[in-house]
């Protein structure tokens, strides 16, 4: 660099009195770049995308085929007109969204462990930006992950119209948002990676099993019916299933799987509302947790 440039730079620093930053605008920019970074990392980690397809496939092919034959195959079908694998398919999309959203948002814990979070927390931005940016990052990754699974539809005998696919986008977004917010809230309470195994075994797995991803949430023992209705993921997976299967059979048949409360099938709109409210409340909690200085 030449001498002139050097002295010019010197002059700028000496006289620089940075214009006061509009913190809200700065925080919104931060939300964007935090979200963008997560997506960049997601695409860069190709193996993760490939590996994340393995588990759903294993469930559909091995678990699905095995279970439907041992159940006598037709039993499921004769009652509803659907095979077990068809039933399970939207549930597996839900599973993918569930794990990707929570893991994605919980990457905050990794960022804390490896020091990067410090770079974000000391910046002149509001901390809500971190919580929201991460929640949106997890949401987007999970949505992409769920949409990738649509390519499996023809192999499991599920018909999808364009309209159905369009309807799935907001539904998976709401499910992903609710769970990503849940993940951010968990991450805001965890100081190290140590609690991660606990979260995985005691929160994520039960949430998955009780969500209706693998079996209809009907005719269950009362205690279990209660827990499944308390599982937020149920309210995200049920509408997804109803929409995905709508092109493959009679609406009445589809409704036979639908989640009921007090014998009433819940309207999809209400389920979506519940899921969204769940996400919004937990994200609010996460924001408060982040604003307490550590």
């Amino acid at each position, binding site marked *: *660099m030449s001498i002139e440039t*050097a002295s010019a*730079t*010197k002059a*700028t*620093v*000496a006289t*620089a009195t*940075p214009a*006061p*930053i509009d*913190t809200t*605008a*700065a925080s919104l*920019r*931060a939300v*964007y*770049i935090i979200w963008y*970074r997560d997506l*960049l*990392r997601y695409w*860069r*980690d190709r193996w993760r995308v490939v590996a994340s397809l393995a588990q759903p496939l294993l469930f559909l092919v091995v678990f699905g085929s095995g279970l439907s034959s041992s159940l006598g195959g037709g039993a499921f079908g004769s009652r509803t007109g659907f095979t077990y694998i068809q039933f399970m398919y939207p549930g597996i999309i839900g599973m993918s969204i569930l794990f990707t959203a929570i893991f994605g948002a919980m990457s905050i814990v*990794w*960022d804390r*462990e*490896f*020091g*990067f979070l*410090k*770079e*974000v927390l*000391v*910046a*002149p*931005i509001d901390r809500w930006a971190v919580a929201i940016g991460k929640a949106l990052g997890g949401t987007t990754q999970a949505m992409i992950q769920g949409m990738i699974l649509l390519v499996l539809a023809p192999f499991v005998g599920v018909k999808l119209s364009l309209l159905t696919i369009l309807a799935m986008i907001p539904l998976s977004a709401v499910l992903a948002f609710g769970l990503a917010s849940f993940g951010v809230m968990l991450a805001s309470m965890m100081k190290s990676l140590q609690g991660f195994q606990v979260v995985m075994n005691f929160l994520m797995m039960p949430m998955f099993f009780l969500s209706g991803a693998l079996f209809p949430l009907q005719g269950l023992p009362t205690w279990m019916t209660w827990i499944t209705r308390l599982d937020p993921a149920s309210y995200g997976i049920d509408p997804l299933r109803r929409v995905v299967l709508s092109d493959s059979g009679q609406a009445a048949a589809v409704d036979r799987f639908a989640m009921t409360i007090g014998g009433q099938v819940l309207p999809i709109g209400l389920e979506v509302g519940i899921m969204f409210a769940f996400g919004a409340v937990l994200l609010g909690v996460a924001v408060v947790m982040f604003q307490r200085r550590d």
Partner: protein
Amino acid sequence: MGEAVIQAKGLVKKYGELEAVRGIDLDVKQGEIFGFLGPNGAGKSTTISMLCTLLSPTSGTASVAGIDVVHDPARVRQRIGLVFQDPSLDDQLTGRENLEFHAFIYSVPAAKRRERIDKMLDLLQLTDRAGSQVRTYSGGMKRRLEIARGMLHEPQIMFLDEPTLGLDPQTRRNIWTHLNDLRERTGITIFMTTHYMDEAEYCDRIAIIDRGQIVALGTPDQLKAMVGGDVVTMTSTKPEEAASEIEKVLHVVPTRDDGTLRMEVPDGRKFVPRLVRELTVPVDTVSLRRPSLDDVFLKLTGRAIRDEEASTQDRMRAMASRWMGRRR
């Protein structure tokens, strides 16, 4: 060198009963490279964290760039650049992407983003590797990238907490060359901590901190002048007898470290021949040198700064972070 850009008065930080920082007063001038020198656990990081608004002081006041660190931390952060002791880069992103991320969260105007990133990459000689993921960088390159990132939003003051920790000597020199160069080019004020005595020589002024207090403050030459003259060390197979003889005959009280005797004398060139002539016990080796900052530290605290111990620890840390980085 102009007015004070960092001022601290009676800064104290307590953790329960433990007093990590016990009343620190400081004045750092515009354009200075100010070194904060002391052994591990002396309170260096705690002090720098309070000045950077990352920790709030238990008592005392401090202002950075004329802004109170307690009352207006956000405005302080806007005007300072930080390089942390522990790595804080995203090593899955490229060097340039790390800088872009920083430019966004520090509200660097969109029109200037690219230009400033290019400039900082150039200043720290990272342009060639800007497009590679950070996990492929060497330790020195990562540090340089962190320095580039810290300067991206054109801060008035750079704070660096042990910027050369865990790096090999050659890389450490290289980082110093860059810091000096940056100061020359931009007139930025640099405040840094280190426990490497030799590095403090690069600073304009140094504060030596021990057990949470500043025990000496001045230019490296001023501090070394505190030792008074030269340092003579000698080894003998009979160090005890030699010590008592030196005290009796030459009226100097040596300090002993195993078989080595160490003396501070006003004029070493004249002292050495006398030493050799007057002693009756066998003298194995004699050496004469100008005092170093180690001698200053030893004189002030009665202890040597434990460099060996520290460097073992650093190596472990560096190793641990490499492993973690890979696992990521």
